[in-house]
């Protein structure tokens, strides 16, 4: 990335432990990963002037928790690709001069659900009115439906799809 943009990923890290962590809230997972990433970069929190994270808990809560007053924030939340967009947005912000060092955080108390929001969309939203009542619950119930149609329309087989999963594990 640096050759094209002049921007580098200076550090990256995970929480101290991974797996089922009922002793950590969602926000604490963000904080722990953030502190480890800042240390990995050889920086201190005083160097951070930009925060990007998905909308819950959101960049404001993360910034408050870390005692950072950012000059630039991004709360883009569009599902599992959010973090790729955060990196692109951070590169653009740094090149535009809005920030020098951006911290991108994520954490999910996926199993323990400590300090975590619900999965259910608002009952008045389009998904809440026209999808959730039929028992949708994440990608396995929604991404699969167009995939099955694609298989019929184009002759894609289960075996061919299995090649993808095998290749990705190499």
């Amino acid at each position, binding site marked *: 990335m640096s050759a094209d943009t002049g921007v580098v990923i200076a550090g990256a890290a995970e929480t101290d432990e991974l797996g089922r962590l009922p002793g950590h809230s969602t926000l604490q997972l963000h904080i722990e990963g953030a502190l480890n990433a800042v240390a990995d970069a050889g920086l201190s929190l005083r160097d951070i002037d930009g925060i990007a994270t998905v909308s819950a808990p959101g960049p404001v809560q993360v910034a408050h928790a870390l005692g950072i007053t950012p000059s630039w924030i991004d709360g883009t939340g569009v599902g599992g690709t959010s973090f790729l967009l955060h990196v692109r947005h951070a590169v653009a912000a740094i090149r535009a001069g809005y920030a020098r060092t951006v911290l991108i955080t994520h954490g999910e108390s996926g199993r323990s659900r400590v300090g975590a929001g619900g999965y*259910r969309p608002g*009952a*008045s939203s389009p998904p809440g009115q026209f999808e959730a009542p039929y*028992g949708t*619950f994440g990608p396995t119930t929604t991404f699969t439906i167009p995939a*099955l149609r694609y298989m019929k329309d184009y002759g894609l087989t289960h075996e061919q799809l299995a090649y993808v999963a095998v290749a990705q594990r190499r």
Partner: protein
Amino acid sequence: MTAKPVPVPTPETQPFWDGCAAGELRLQRCADCGRPYFYPRPVCPACGSRDVSWFTASGRATLYSYVINHRAAPGFEDDTPYAIAVVQLEEGPRMMTSIVGLPPTPEALELDMPLQVSFERRGDVSLPVFGPVPAAAPASGAAASGAAASGAAR
């Protein structure tokens, strides 16, 4: 146990849910480009026109695609496995729904099979669901009384 989600209408979707309560599947059509669409909203997603109106769809559809879900969404613990489907309405739009009256198996769910709408009570609303088209109904019975009921309503 968490209850199943119940849709809460907005002013823009209320006519759709009123239709379901009356046993009708109501869609919108654009007066400018002529296209029918779903889900309900006061602007045509094909051309941006605000000149749209409601009409009653036939309730006939074909099975566009589906998934047989074994990991219950909260509230659906007693239903697994259950089929979540997208149907292609006769008028063109597609909508997500549940499949009723057929076992949730690949053998019973053949893509492009004909389906017919019915309505299930869920809290304060009637939810459109789809099942097999009834075998050619005799002249008397449900179909005739349904026609009489809608005639009387006019």
